[in-house]
């Protein structure tokens, strides 16, 4: 019982909420880029919110289900189809044996997440099942999926249907992705920026460059400078840290970031904005808005609350639906 990879995508990898507790040894968390989509996909199929999911980019893989399951897609819209029929995002789908999942074209977003009920079987390393490509551990043999791989389900699902069917409820995710500017908490070296650079950070667009990946987004903007040069010692950094590089451009650290770095820290993306950020593609623009810590914390708390409510509602619907038969 599981999924056969008929065709692999650009970088399909198994991800959970991240490997924590080992950053003092230089081992990054490497969790899902879009932590909200990870949770929504899991919640829709009744999994723990941080269970292992498949993170996909476009071109996305072609997957054949060799046993029935309950699945859900969340995050980017790659126009998914099941046996040729279009599938919605953020809705659970009962899958029949032999169904083939394909993705036609990227309509919006950068990363799509697939969850199945009971989750995938995955290698555990240092307390997490997320992939670490450097150590070649976790996830699916510590690497991205390849054609022919067999992605096993961790638990059997015995609800067999003749034809795949979309369940009649949707997770409303609109409020989980704040529109507009990317919220930023000012960093330790922000005040050292000269006035023009502060203007730039607060008012100019930043474009995501082509050489951006899960480690970091390279941003292109008007050049920025510190009023006074400051040598920084390396110290701990986090997902969302915005650093000023020697070439006067910036880099935003993402899920596979190094654990420490020594460039001036201009700001740190607020948790509530990270999922939206993770759904941007090279060429997209970001504008930043500085917010206070109190605001960042309440926005994050509201997002968490929304996810809890979603979980309660989904569990209720699932129980009702799956037990009525």
């Amino acid at each position: 019982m599981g999924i056969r990879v008929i065709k692999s995508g650009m970088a399909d990898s198994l991800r959970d909420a991240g490997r924590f507790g080992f950053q003092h040894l230089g081992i990054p968390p490497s969790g899902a880029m879009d932590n909200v989509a990870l949770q929504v996909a899991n919640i829709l199929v009744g999994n723990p919110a941080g269970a292992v999911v498949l993170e996909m980019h476009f071109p996305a893989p072609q997957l054949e289900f060799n046993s029935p399951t309950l699945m859900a897609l969340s995050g980017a819209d790659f126009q998914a189809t099941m046996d040729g029929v279009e599938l919605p995002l953020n809705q659970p789908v009962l899958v029949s044996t032999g169904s083939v999942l394909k993705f036609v074209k990227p309509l919006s977003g950068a990363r799509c997440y697939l969850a199945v009920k009971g989750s995938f079987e995955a290698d555990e390393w240092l307390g997490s099942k997320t992939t670490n490509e450097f150590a070649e551990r976790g996830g699916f043999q510590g690497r991205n999926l390849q054609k022919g791989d067999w992605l096993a389900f961790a638990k059997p699902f015995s609800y067999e249907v003749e034809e795949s069917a979309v369940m009649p409820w949707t997770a409303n995710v609109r409020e989980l992705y704040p529109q507009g500017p990317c919220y930023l908490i000012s960093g330790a070296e922000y005040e050292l920026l000269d006035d023009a650079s502060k203007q730039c950070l607060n008012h100019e667009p930043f474009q995501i460059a082509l050489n951006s990946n899960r480690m970091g987004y390279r941003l292109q903007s008007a050049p920025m400078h510190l009023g006074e040069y400051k040598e920084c010692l390396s110290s701990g950094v986090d997902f969302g840290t915005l650093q000023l590089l020697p070439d006067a451009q910036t880099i935003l650290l993402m899920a596979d970031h190094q654990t420490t770095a020594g460039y001036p820290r201009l700001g740190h993306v607020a948790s509530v904005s990270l999922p939206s950020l993770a759904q941007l593609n090279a060429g997209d623009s970001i504008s930043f808005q500085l917010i206070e810590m109190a605001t960042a914390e309440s926005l994050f708390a509201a997002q968490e609350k929304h996810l809890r409510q979603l979980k309660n509602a989904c569990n209720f619907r699932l129980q009702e639906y799956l037990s009525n038969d």
Partner: protein
Amino acid sequence: MYGIEKNVEPKIAAFSSDNLRLTCSVEKPFPYRIYPIGDQAITIDFGNLIKDEINAQVMALFYWLKEENLHGIKDIIPAYASISLVYDGALIRKWAGHGLAYQYMEQYLTNALQQLDLLALPSTRELLIPVCYHQSLAPDLKGLCEEKKMDLDEFVAIHTANPYRVYMIGFLPGFAYMGSLDERIVAPRKRTPRTHVAAGSVGIAGVQTGIYPFASPGGWQLIGQTPLSLFNANAGVPTLFQPGDLVQFEPISIDQFYQLKNNPS
């Protein structure tokens, strides 16, 4: 044997071994600054200096925090002169009452620092690491010796004279930033980083020395190589080095290098 650690007396003096000429004191904390590095991460910063005494305080605090194991702290990252904590904002906020999770963490760190001098430090491990300085494994050594007008043996003698402290781990899994180098062999990073540095390469950069655990790009000047494997994904603690370790290098011949490399015990 190589790589096997011995434990030094577990007390404050663990960070003041005489051969390092340390005058460590954890009685009075160094001046510090606490600031956020996100809304779920915080840093306590003891300044912008690579200094044994400051790093000793960082390690004391690091091991104290690890021991405390406060629920909701997801990672503790020590560096040269700072510690960063990654925390679960939702959880910490519950305990913060009407305050912010950040304020709770700020207070927690301040209190921790005040309690430090009451506590015994964990023991420091000493590791003996064989390094081969043969020119086939040390592409920058000859040039450095010429530049500094010293012969190779002298350079090696200086590099292996005293143990180094693992100030922090970062850049790559298990990459230990060690120091401080004797000023006679201090050298800047290479102007153009190499695209490929072999795993096990020993490098120097400024007052630091370190070993690449994996083959990777790198800008440090390469002066030797260890045959030991610094990363073992199958071990419970996958990295050979841990923050706070003392590392003594021992020069070995090229024959010994390949012997150890081919027959890791």
